[in-house]
């Protein structure tokens, strides 16, 4: 299946996109900076979104995007075409972002504990019904998920990745992808019935 990298334009990366990406990557291998610039323009916003969702800090996400593209520049020759270029780049982004997340554990565990506390106090009966407020609550609930689960939610629902692609990106078995998603759904369960009712707005 294809991965969607620009929801606003509903642009889908299909076989032609992958071929174009592979051609750019071949030029990057030859130290062609224009090709790197073209890949950068294409992947900047998807990578920024993904790394921001994982790290929770925009500046860190910006730095992580450049870390990712530096690896692409440096290690283009190691790409063997066993996966799509997009999957390879997103895999680098996942590993780079997760390192940032893990190194900030002390910060994040305290931060997540605060969010958990707020989330536990949240009562569906008192919940606001406006979609923007629901988005805000959902955002906070997503922040409270472990980063590994958040990544699977984001890759499934924003990037439209199949579970096979996600397994390649995050480097784990397919069954682990399914169970991470299942646990994430269970944690979000308190909000979801109301979201289901309000989603038709």
């Amino acid at each position, binding site marked *: *299946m294809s991965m969607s990298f620009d*929801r606003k334009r509903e642009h889908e990366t299909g076989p032609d996109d992958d071929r174009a990406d592979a051609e750019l990557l071949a030029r990057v*291998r*030859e*130290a062609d900076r224009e090709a790197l610039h073209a890949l*950068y*323009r294409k992947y*900047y*916003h998807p990578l*920024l*979104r993904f790394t*921001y969702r994982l790290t929770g800090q925009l500046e860190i996400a*910006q730095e992580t995007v*450049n870390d*990712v*593209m*530096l*690896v692409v*520049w*440096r*290690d*283009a020759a*190691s*790409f063997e075409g*066993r*996966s799509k270029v997009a*999957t390879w780049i997103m*895999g*680098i982004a996942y590993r*780079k972002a997760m*390192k940032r997340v*893990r*190194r900030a*554990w*002390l910060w994040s*565990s305290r931060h997540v504990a605060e969010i958990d506390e707020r989330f536990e106090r949240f009562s569906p009966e008192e919940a606001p019904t406006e979609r923007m407020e629901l*988005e805000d609550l*959902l955002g906070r609930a*997503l922040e409270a998920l*472990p980063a590994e689960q958040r990544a699977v939610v984001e890759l*499934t*629902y*924003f990037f*439209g*990745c*199949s*579970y096979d692609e996600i*397994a*390649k*990106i995050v*480097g784990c078995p397919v069954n682990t992808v399914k169970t991470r*998603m*299942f646990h994430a*759904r269970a944690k*979000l369960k308190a909000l*979801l019935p109301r*979201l*289901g009712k*309000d*989603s038709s707005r």
Partner: protein
Amino acid sequence: MTDDAMSHDEAVLLLPWLVSGTLDAGERERVERHVRGCVTCRAELAEQRALASLVRDRPIVPLSAERDFERLRQALDRNASHCSLGPRAATWAVAASITIVAIAALVASLVVGTREPVAPYRTLTQGETPPMLVDVVFADASDDEIRALIDSLGAEIVAGPSPRVGRYTLRLVGGRATEADLDGVVRRLRDDERVRFAARAYSVPTDDSSDARER
């Protein structure tokens, strides 16, 4: 139940990818058939559709790709000023230069008889001797378990996991940690059945992971 009927447990795991439209045709047909006869899954499917819609609509601050690319370009220029080779060759050249520095430092350390580690390691705690660092390798622990254990020790991760052995380097936080505290942390880690290896460390390894590995 026919041979290709899908169990509830199997179907419920696949609902998110039914929503995202990424199941292959056969799997999609089997999940849909189950959902038609399962009230629980139909309710769950509605919830997942709502969740997908909200996740897709969550905005982030739009930033300029060009401005950030300029920062990357400058970083590449700085590397290029050290070496005019291509990216792959430049990496090897940098690695070679680090190795030369490391060998030189090792020779120097042997000459003066010091036990200080050598490049490519960096110390985070210059002026603090010794640094409050521990190397640890976990045997079989989930990320949540590792996180909880490290939090309970009053430590933070400053490097790792390393790509081959999964080594983390931890640092005790709080300015008043003593060597006795550090020894206590090492003992606690060694007593934990989820820990394969724990020992004091004297420096923080550089980031040598292979982030470009292809799955």
